């Protein structure tokens, strides 16, 4: 038997095998014997016809139909003997059988690439330190005050601190109603920055029962007229900044003064931005590791990740049904780069877990359980048992440990960035 292994692109390989007729005979005999057991020939009980009779009647056909099984047996034996880690289904790309002479075939397959993590120490990374500006804190407080505001019926909208209820009707250039282009009972907060300027201007000083016509633009940029009928005007009464309000927002009893409240709000915003900073640093670390260690991404891995992405995308729709115009091919094309990066990171991570014998310990599970116990209102000792069974939790712990290890050996530069009022 002549076996030759060729390297194709990435981690793909090609095995070329040549078997002489003498090597094929035992395989053929096995196939004929197998066929004999199923054969039903007149004059013989089922499976009792003599072997040479089967050979004479069906030998050639059995030989041809057993070629694929022979190729499979040879291939599997080669993979086991050479301790190869097969990643995808192998496919026979070429097969040539010359009766009574030889069989030649080619098999294409993908194996787990050999990975060496050489560069993980001294990565140069930047960590963003977000500085929370007073305007951002003020914006947050204003948001909470608006959410807890009360409304009082008023006759006229004097400033932005009003909510108006209106009916909108599109008109043609001659001022005639366009049927089917109207909206009823639309509640609009005049302090909302997203209102088109012409409407903001048009709503100024509007009274209950008043009808106005506002010149605006349609989606294509053409002129249009909108008839606005105001049916209700409500004044927004913001809550006072007192202890009751502080308690509602922070859920804490000990916040008494406005300074303490502002400090608490700033602290909460800071926590959110610290989380953003950590996630950004993790992403940058992953990207830098991929750049520093050139690893081929196996096609099988990429495909599994892309299928996972489709499943996640599916969950966004009711009954988990993809839209009719959804194209799997286009989706996979669009997300392919992301999938390649993910595949490379998974391989790097797996290799580091293996090389440095990183494991998920009892205290790691306990830490996550304690963090989430309050959120789900389940005792940590009960949660920990569920977490130990969960493969996703285990992978998260291992992922965090790998990232921690890389970050401990990285050169991290801190960069400050101011967070102002949101646009």
């Amino acid at each position, binding site marked *: 038997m002549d076996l030759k292994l060729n390297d194709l692109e990435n981690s793909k390989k090609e095995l070329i095998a040549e078997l002489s007729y003498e090597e094929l005979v035992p395989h053929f005999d096995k196939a004929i014997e197998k066929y004999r057991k199923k054969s039903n020939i007149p*004059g*013989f009980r089922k499976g*009792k016809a003599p072997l*040479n*009779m089967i*050979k*004479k009647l069906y*030998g050639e056909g059995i030989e041809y139909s057993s070629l694929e099984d022979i190729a499979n047996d040879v291939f599997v034996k080669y993979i086991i003997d050479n301790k190869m880690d097969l990643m995808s289904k192998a496919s026979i790309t070429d097969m040539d059988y010359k009766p*009574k002479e030889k069989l030649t075939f080619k098999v294409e397959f993908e194996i787990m690439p050999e990975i060496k993590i050489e560069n993980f120490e001294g990565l140069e990374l930047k960590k963003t330190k977000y500085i929370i500006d007073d305007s951002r804190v003020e914006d947050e407080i204003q948001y909470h005050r608006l959410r807890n505001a009360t409304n009082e019926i008023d006759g006229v909208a004097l400033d932005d601190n009003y909510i108006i209820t209106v009916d909108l009707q599109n008109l043609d250039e001659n001022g005639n109603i366009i049927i089917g282009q109207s909206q009823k009972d639309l509640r609009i907060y005049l302090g909302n920055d997203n209102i088109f300027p012409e409407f903001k201007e048009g709503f100024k000083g509007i009274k209950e029962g008043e009808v106005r016509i506002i010149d605006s633009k349609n989606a294509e940029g053409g002129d249009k007229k909108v008839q606005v009928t105001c049916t209700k005007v409500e004044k927004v009464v913001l809550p006072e900044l007192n202890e009751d309000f502080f308690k509602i927002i922070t859920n804490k009893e000990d916040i008494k003064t406005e300074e303490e409240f502002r400090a608490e709000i700033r602290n909460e915003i800071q926590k959110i931005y610290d989380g953003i900073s950590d996630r950004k640093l993790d992403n940058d670390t992953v990207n830098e590791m991929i750049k520093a260690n050139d690893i081929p991404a196996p096609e099988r891995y990429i495909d599994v990740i892309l299928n996972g992405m489709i499943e996640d995308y599916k969950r966004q729709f009711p009954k988990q049904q993809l839209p009719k115009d959804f194209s799997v091919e286009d989706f996979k094309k669009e997300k392919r780069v992301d999938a390649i990066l993910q595949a490379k990171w998974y391989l790097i991570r797996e290799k580091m877990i293996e090389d440095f014998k990183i494991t998920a310990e009892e205290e790691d599970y306990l830490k996550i359980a304690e963090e989430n116990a309050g959120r789900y209102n389940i005792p940590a000792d009960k949660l920990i048992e569920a977490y130990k069974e969960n493969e996703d939790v285990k992978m998260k712990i291992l992922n965090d440990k790998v990232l921690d290890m890389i970050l401990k050996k990285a050169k991290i530069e801190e960069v400050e960035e101011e967070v102002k009022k949101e646009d």
Partner: protein
Amino acid sequence: MKTILVKPLITEKNTLLQETLNQYSFEVGIKSNKIEIKRAVEKKFNVRVSNVRTLVLKGKKKSQMTRKGRFEGYRADRKKAIVTLHKEDKIELLGNIE
């Protein structure tokens, strides 16, 4: 010309007879006798025949219903010959198999 050897009979039982007793079964012409059968086998397969036994298989009774009524008849009788060869001779009924 009278047909002597009609066809070899290949069944599980006959295969067993071939393997154990070097006996081969043939369907032969109904009017052929043992001497004719012996000669025919020796000539056709180039072997030595040491014994021939024959038997007649009676045709089965068959009936058929038609619009004109019931028709009854018999299938043709057949003759079977069991030929014992010289212990050194052999017939490849299925041809040579490589």
